[in-house]
């Protein structure tokens, strides 16, 4: 009896090797049902992490676009902002032969091999919010120019602090493309002469995790008792920082600004501890990303500079250099307009 199953087991292994050996290396065994054209729009969104209200808002935009284009929409992703888990999901989606993957990257390079394999199978790749290596995607939907975002953050905080004091940055994942682009411009803005009374003492990485960001803020307040302001260009980070500052009764004494969602920040805008913060409309970002992906799948664009495509209610969009499509300028939220938004 034992021998029989041992032989079965060995036989299974041999079978596996034979099967894999006999199939020619590389692509398409049924991989090209993706360019079926027309109504086959099986598009999947892969955000940095899925339990994040900002990405949920973007997904809603994508769903709207799917309804308008009569395509299908689904969102998958890891529960923590992990690049290797995103790779696993990319492989899953590749094996499912979706038509397009719309991804926001935790790490621009780690996702590249898997994305390139997907593209090799005929799947279109659009990045949004946080870019991947340019040769691993066809189009990148950029929410706002990183320069605008970076500089506005520093300008807002500088004005609140009267241009003096120590500040810190509470970021997301240390490898996140968008974060590093913005931080680069923040540092450049800070180097201008009008900010010479301010100094950047630390950049903390909260990994888009609420608990980590909360503790990071507490740590910052402890380690730098003279800290006057924090910039947190991540909606998870700014929400956690606001609560952390409040929990040690420093609301109003330590200035906070960054990128946040109106629903999470409404209380702090109204009580004055976070007078201003910025964002864009993530719903529009998702909406535009879906339309771009659909246009690629339908063969209307290939990602080259100068091509145009129709993006529903957003009108016609033109692809810029490096396959980048800009959504628009960032929105600044404060007491006057915060009640107009619900996300």
């Amino acid at each position, binding site marked *: 009896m034992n021998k029989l199953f041992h032989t079965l087991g060995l036989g299974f292994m041999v079978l596996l090797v034979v099967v894999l050996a006999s199939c020619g290396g590389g692509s398409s065994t049924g991989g090209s049902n993706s360019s079926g054209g027309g109504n086959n729009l099986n598009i999947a969104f892969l955000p940095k992490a899925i339990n994040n209200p900002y990405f949920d808002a973007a997904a809603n935009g994508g769903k709207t676009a799917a309804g308008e284009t009569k395509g299908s929409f689904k969102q998958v*992703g890891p529960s923590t902002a992990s690049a290797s888990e995103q790779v696993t999901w990319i492989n899953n989606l590749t094996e499912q032969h979706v038509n397009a993957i719309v991804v926001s990257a935790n790490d621009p390079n780690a996702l590249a091999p898997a994305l390139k394999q997907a593209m090799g199978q005929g799947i279109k790749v659009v990045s949004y919010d946080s870019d991947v290596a340019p040769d691993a995607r066809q189009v990148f939907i950029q929410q706002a120019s990183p320069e605008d975002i970076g500089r506005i953050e520093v300008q807002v905080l500088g004005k609140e602090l009267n241009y003096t004091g120590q500040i810190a940055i509470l970021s997301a994942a240390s490898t996140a493309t968008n974060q590093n682009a913005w931080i680069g411009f923040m540092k450049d803005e800070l180097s201008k002469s009008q900010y010479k009374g301010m100094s950047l003492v630390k950049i903390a990485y909260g990994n888009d995790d609420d608990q980590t960001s909360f503790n990071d803020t507490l740590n910052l307040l402890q380690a730098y008792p003279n800290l006057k302001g924090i910039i947190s260009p991540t909606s998870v980070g700014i929400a956690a920082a606001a609560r952390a500052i409040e929990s040690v009764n420093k609301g109003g004494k330590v200035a906070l600004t960054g990128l946040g969602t109106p629903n999470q920040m409404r209380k702090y805008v109204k009580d004055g501890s976070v007078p201003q913060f910025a964002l864009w409309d993530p719903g529009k970002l998702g909406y535009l990303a879906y339309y771009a992906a659909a246009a690629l799948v339908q063969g209307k664009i290939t990602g080259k500079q100068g091509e145009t495509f129709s993006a529903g209610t957003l009108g016609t969009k033109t692809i810029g250099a490096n396959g980048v499509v800009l959504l628009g300028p960032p929105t600044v939220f404060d007491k006057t307009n915060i009640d107009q938004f619900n996300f």
Partner: protein
Amino acid sequence: MKQLRTLLSSWDALLVVLLLLAIILGTTLSPYFLTPFNVASLTKDLMEKAIMALPMTLIIIAGEIDLSVASTLGLASVVLGVTWNAGVPLWLGMVLVLIIGVAAGALNGLLVTRLGLPSLVVTLGTLALYRGLAYVVLKDQAVSNFPAAFTNFGFGSVPGTLIPWPFVVFLILALVFLGVLQWSWLGRQIYAVGNSKEAARFAGIRVANLKLGLFMLSGLLAALAGIIFTARFSSARPDNALGFELDVITIVLLGGVNIFGGRGTLIGVILSLFVIGAVRNALGLANISGDIQNIVVGSLLIFSVLGPNVAQSIREVLTHRRLAVGGVTKKE
């Protein structure tokens, strides 16, 4: 003895059934499950765990356990990234990493054999320590600019076929381990130690040295898995392979290796390897996230020990009932 053999062979039968069930699950959930491309992909995802499962089998048969394998993998990956970034040639970095793996295993082995500490707690501590060291070395950075040849080794296949390169590595290792465990004197020593440490020692087996060697082997192979993982993802990060130890231990226990030591075969482990791999792949194709997949794997882990216990209890109850009915008393 005969009852033992029937129990063992019925476990192998169960594994075959489970594998078939997993395949059925896969084909039901997705038409792409049985395509060669997917099978190759499934295999690729499995190889690091497979390589670590080989020495884990020997360790558990010998009556110990090693929870730190995934952390050793992570540490190895990170060191490889750091050395590569610093300009050290990749082959030298790999050698260094393998040495670190052996050292990590040696620490585990020494604490267990020389100080008599339970391997459970020691490897729980080193699980934290090695993962922690990985974070210290690389902070939360990542190294991703590895050369294409290296990435191809992890991600690509033998030219002209779909056989992933890491699978070739695993096959060679599996054959070696199979030979050692089933047909060599070393293998018999391992079984003996697992069955009774004291009896083994009286038979002249150097138990401490054997166990130390097994832990060092586990560390070595975990480091090798780290190299492969890094190549496959083209990325060295401290959180690489976080949580892999669950799968590795489940694979070994589900493969029929007894947690208390002394029993189990590599063939069973290899079968259960593909059961776990197929289940995860099938669920992934249905867009079921890793967290939910873990419910299945965690349950399989518990079942792999609970099942035989329950089976044994039932067997005992039936035997007693048979004896009572038959009026046979156990007077010898």
